[in-house]
């Protein structure tokens, strides 16, 4: 398929075409092409340095690719936009380390993430309306942090921070969520609960999960893309990928 025909398809939400990013001669992404369909749950795996995080950086505008194009919803060229503009198109991102605003309370963290007012002038005059407050309360109970709403986020446990961050993504109503190692540092129980939450979320949005934890990837049961040295090595179901000889060679076999 030529790029034009892929872009014309209504079902494609995110399309990376021939993206290359190099840092001091090292190619973090090497002619990477990737298609994520609307409503899909996709897991991306790969050894360290395969380019997983760089791929997310390119999609969210943190890194500009040297060559290649990134299209969202068919016609939005993400390589021309900055982070906040991309976020406002409906792309949310969860970082590898939980990054909540430690000096703000749990409630205030959610308030900032809540969809709506983003302009500087409008934020200055923004009011917390009853509807918005209700949405925050609903999210608080969904992520189980109602009792902690007044606590500074810095005082939460590691797992609670991860949940708060997922809550912040939830409340923002994104069409596409990029989750970078969402279960890193979680206990088994927390990991299990996170898998359930992700499956629950995936019902009404598109999610791309980057993960190391193979048990977790298997529990999501989604289509898997294996990255290696900055490009796609294999793609398909987890069984298909695990039986791929080249994948075994570079990643699973070690």
């Amino acid at each position, binding site marked *: 398929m030529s790029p034009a025909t892929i872009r014309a398809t209504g079902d494609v939400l995110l399309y990376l075409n021939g993206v290359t990013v190099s840092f001091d001669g090292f190619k973090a992404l090497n002619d990477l092409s990737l298609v994520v369909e609307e409503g899909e749950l996709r897991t991306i795996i790969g050894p360290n340095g395969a380019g997983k995080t760089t791929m997310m950086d390119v999609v*969210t505008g*943190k890194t500009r690719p040297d060559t290649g194009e990134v299209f969202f919803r068919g016609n939005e060229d993400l390589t021309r936009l*900055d*982070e*906040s503009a991309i*976020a*406002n198109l409906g792309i*949310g*991102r969860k*970082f590898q380390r939980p*990054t909540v*605003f*430690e*000096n*703000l309370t749990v*409630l*205030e963290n959610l*308030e*900032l*993430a809540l969809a709506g*007012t*983003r*302009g*500087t*002038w409008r*934020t*200055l*005059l*923004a*009011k*917390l309306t009853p509807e918005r*407050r209700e949405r*925050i*309360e609903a999210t608080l*109970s*969904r*992520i*189980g*942090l*109602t*009792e*902690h*709403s*007044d*606590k500074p986020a810095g005082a939460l*446990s590691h797992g*609670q921070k991860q*949940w708060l961050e997922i809550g*912040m993504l939830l409340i*923002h109503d994104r069409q596409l969520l990029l989750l970078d190692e969402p279960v890193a540092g979680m206990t088994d*129980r927390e990991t*299990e*609960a*996170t898998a*359930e*939450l992700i499956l*629950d979320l995936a019902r009404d949005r598109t999610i791309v999960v980057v993960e190391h934890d193979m048990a977790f990837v298997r529990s999501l049961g989604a289509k898997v893309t294996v990255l290696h040295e900055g490009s796609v090595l294999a793609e398909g179901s987890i069984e298909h990928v695990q039986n791929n000889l080249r994948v075994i060679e570079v990643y699973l076999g070690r």
Partner: protein
Amino acid sequence: MRAGLVSAEQSAWTPRFWVGFAIALLVLGGVIPVLNLAVAHDSPVAVPDYLVPLLGKYVCYAILALSLDLVWGYAGILSLGHGAFFALGGYCMGMYLMRQIGTRGVYGNPLLPDFMVFLNWKELPWFWWGFDHFAYAVAMIVLVPGVFAFVFGWLAFRSRVTGVYLSIITQAMTYALWLAFFRNDMGFGGNNGLTDYKDILGWDVHLAETRLGLYLASVAGLGIGFLVCRFITVSKLGRVLLALRDAESRVRFLGYSTTNAKLFVFTVSAVLAGIAGALYVPQVGIINPSEFSPGNSIEIAIWVSVGGRGTLTGAMIGAVLVNLAKTWLTGAVPEIWLFFLGGLFVLTTLVFPHGIVGILRNLPWPRPRRVAPTKTPVPVQEPVAIRKRA
């Protein structure tokens, strides 16, 4: 848990706050004038005339400290060039005051200030036009520092210059202006600056009444400046600023333009600093390039950190206390002052990171309002997804 969901905006503008604000305003704006005018001069509580402009100077420094705290304490932008905005506002006021001298100058030239006659200039440079009107001067007091900060901030924040690099370029900015204003060719009186003022709005600047009026104008400026800063810091934008101070890229990924937020607050802050400078100049009677000196701007940061950065009251308290100490020490033991200032900075940085306000907060005050409702440890609640299974 309803109580927990009261937003910061609501809890900031309580009757209790307004009472405290009114009391502070009354003490500064009511008690001091009464002690100056109505109390017998030999009374121990009388405020003699010579003290009024000194107090006015401290109030202007407090406004300046507020302006730095707004960007540094709340948005994490350590500007080491805020003295430049202060001086720019001061020069605008100085130009107005120079034009008011008229024929009363040494050379009696009705149009040109003395230093221009001395330099053999024949006509008034274009950038001095209009400064004989007070309203025009006021507009410039706001616009010159504001536009300058906007352009400087736009270039710096758009290129994502942050942290110590930003501090360095703000130092370079004020240093560059310092050198520029020293030059006679600039048309601002060179090394000597602008001085020998006669009157402001028709009032002789040397009269005790005028000085009291200027002091009261400064107090009004401080009150309004404080309310503006409080309005910004307790708004949702204030939370965006706190958030970007700690994790800027994360704020961007939430869809906020951190560049615009920082630019807004930097510009507001520069305007406030400019107003402080404009109020300061008629009370001290001179503005010269030394106000641009890089050391001056660093001193402002010390006031704020001594008082407690990130708290508006702390910034004001710090400015007044450090300057009281400066007035006293530079008179009593001048050679000690710089060591004292340096020592103070080291001490606050290492031992009292939250300054005087931090020390006061840690004292065992009776706190009727802050009884923690969560004293009993709350059992860790598990997310709904887990509980569904159980």
